[in-house]
């Protein structure tokens, strides 16, 4: 596979380096029951989990690739050459000083210590599928908040973990949730006690280092009654010439009156396949908001969902996608209404540049026995060049009386007149494009925490620079 011609290389190079570490634990390439045994043995996992993983492996093998509706890019994945488990052999660290030097350097270059010093409550950094660094600041710990890697949580808090693990996203949901269930490693586990409002956003960071390595982190966040928490993840990976696979599963549980906000900025290198299943369960009066931005990767398939299970539950998905040459951002949302007076809101804005392709898939389901449910969807696409592509596949099923749904969609271009107007004020053509594109997504970018919105604007600027001419 050719490395896709990326019109702008500058920002990708921030992630474009790796250290020649000999991983201490490596399950080898390809996937079989032996791989599962290796993972369970190396991690010292309980037998129930071995069963769980093996069952998932069989489900994965039995399901076909969803090529009847997904893009052709999926067929490029060669499952036999991927490494499904790789770790440096160390357990999670408490303080920065104890982390091995090479790994420290990777994260220092990518700014982790700095962001921790600022305002985050705790940082959990993952390096090649094990949580290397885990630190919970005293304020968060004192509130009774549990924030640890999924591996650790499995061992230390099996009571809470097993109660919800695999309940929001069952193994058989799709081929890739099955794959994740078989080989997951790393990811975060968060439990927020009743009534606790976590003041600072919790953050995790992911990185792929070895060639042909796939990341399968599994995140589970439980917000108990009346609690509030915000979680942020941003990721990057170095550039390689063969495909890398990232197939995460994120499960959120918002108990009555709780609020969870989950923010992602994805900027994987353009050779990564990013196939993620994200779903939240919102009980009575609870609220789940996904804020999702996809800028990198070769192919991203991700449809953050909310199951509105309790009365007056609210679900929201804010999605920004930027697809450049060689990229396909296949994103959207799913809102499943399962109680009266539930509301859902989806706002999606995509930008296709060069030969980039952006796809919106939105599922809204309101069954006929429900009353007073409301859904609103807005999806706007911006096409920059004549070869840019966008497709929209809304799947809206609303039945019953007293429910309402609204769907608005638009496709637009930056007009030559707008560019000329901005140039006449002294902005170069690239600056004008950049300003217009940032303007297009501005109301969504503003919903991200400030450090992300600054990074997003910069990433869009760089992408636009290459598109002009």
């Amino acid at each position, binding site marked *: 596979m050719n490395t896709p011609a990326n019109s702008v290389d500058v920002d990708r190079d921030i992630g474009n380096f790796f250290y020649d570490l000999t991983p201490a634990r490596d399950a080898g390439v390809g996937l079989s029951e032996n791989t599962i045994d290796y993972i369970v043995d190396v991690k010292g996992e309980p037998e129930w989990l071995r069963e769980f993983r093996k069952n998932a492996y069989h489900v994965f093998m039995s399901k076909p690739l969803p090529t009847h509706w997904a893009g052709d890019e999926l067929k490029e994945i060669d499952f036999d050459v991927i490494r499904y488990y790789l770790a440096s052999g160390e357990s999670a660290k408490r303080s920065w000083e104890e982390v091995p030097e090479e790994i420290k350097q990777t994260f220092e270059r990518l700014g982790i210590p700095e962001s921790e010093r600022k305002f985050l409550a705790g940082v959990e950094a993952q390096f090649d599928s094990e949580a290397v660094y885990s630190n919970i600041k005293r304020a968060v710990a004192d509130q009774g908040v549990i924030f640890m890697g999924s591996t650790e949580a499995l061992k230390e808090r099996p009571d809470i973990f097993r109660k919800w693990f695999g309940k929001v996203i069952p193994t058989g949901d799709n081929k890739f949730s099955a794959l994740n269930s078989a080989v997951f490693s790393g990811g975060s586990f968060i439990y927020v006690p009743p009534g606790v409002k976590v003041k600072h956003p919790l953050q995790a960071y992911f990185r792929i280092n070895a060639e042909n390595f796939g990341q399968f982190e599994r995140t589970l966040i439980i917000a108990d009654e009346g609690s509030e928490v915000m979680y942020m993840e941003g990721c990057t990976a170095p550039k390689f010439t063969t495909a890398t696979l990232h197939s995460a599963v994120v499960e959120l549980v918002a108990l009555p009156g709780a609020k969870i906000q989950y923010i992602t900025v994805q900027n994987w290198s353009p050779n990564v396949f990013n196939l993620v299943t994200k779903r939240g369960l919102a009980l009575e009066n609870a609220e789940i908001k996904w804020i999702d931005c996809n800028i990198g990767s070769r192919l991203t398939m991700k449809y953050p969902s909310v199951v509105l299970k309790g009365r007056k539950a609210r679900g929201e998905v804010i999605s920004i996608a930027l697809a450049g040459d060689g990229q396909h951002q296949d994103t959207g949302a799913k809102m499943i209404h399962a109680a009266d007076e539930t509301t859902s809101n989806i706002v999606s804005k995509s930008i296709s540049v060069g030969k980039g392709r952006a796809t919106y898939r939105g599922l809204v389901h309101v069954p006929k026995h429900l009353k007073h449910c409301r859904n609103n969807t807005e999806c706007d696409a911006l096409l920059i060049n004549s070869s840019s592509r966008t497709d929209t596949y809304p799947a809206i099923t609303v039945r019953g009386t007293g429910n309402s749904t609204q769907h608005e969609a638009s496709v637009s271009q930056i007009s030559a007149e*707008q560019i000329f107007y*901005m140039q006449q004020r002294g902005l170069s053509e690239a600056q004008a494009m950049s300003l217009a594109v940032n303007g297009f997504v501005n109301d969504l970018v503003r919903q991200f925490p400030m450090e992300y919105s600054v990074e997003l604007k910069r990433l869009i600027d760089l992408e636009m620079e290459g598109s002009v001419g």
Partner: protein
Amino acid sequence: MSSIVIKDLQVAIGDKEIIRGLNLEFGKGEMHAIMGPNGSGKSTLAKVMAGHPDYQVIGGDILLDGESILEWEPDVRARKGIFMAFQYPMEIPGVSNANFLRAALQARLPEGEELDATDFYHLLYQKMDLLDIRREFTARAVNEGFSGGEKKRNEILQMAILEPAFAVLDETDSGLDIDALKIVAKGVNTLRGPNVGILLITHYQRILNYIIPDFVHVMFDGRIVRSGGKELALELESKGYDWLKELDAEPVGAN
């Protein structure tokens, strides 16, 4: 004198020739008005000076202080001090007026130099006060949801902030009622001075009651056919544009 000189200019769009040998010079400190009927090429002249890509210059030249501007991109011309107030200003959704002006000012600074935010807002509010524009305007998206009058006033505000050497106002009076016209005229008058040369393109004489020109030129069929002082506008007002057809077909140079 620092000036823009237009020499024997010929402009076409596709196969159609619109400007057929136009000569004009306007310098800093001067206010020139161009009048003429629809189709005379007035707006085309403005757009060509700004560098609009739809038009081809097929003959002649446009010089800024002796240097030809024809090879320069629109943004280069802008940074060299040429400003055009658009007849139909564009909307730029999601981009606030403040951010737009900041970006425009920042673009004029040398590489690496940052525009100081406090200085910028000080300047912005000062100019807004001068033009009776309310503060909440800064956060609104450029021209989005603006009335005709508000758009034209926004053009003048931008001119006030960018302080061009040469400004071309393309039918700034079109679509305005008398009150809006007075406000825009007041704005333009406050910006007049020895450091800026202004070319005001207009269809109706009325604005020239509020903005008194130093020179008036009449454009007809792609050329300037008559030039004179401010009285020429009044003569045109009483005689109408039909009178121009009777004039000598030979192009008459300005000044």
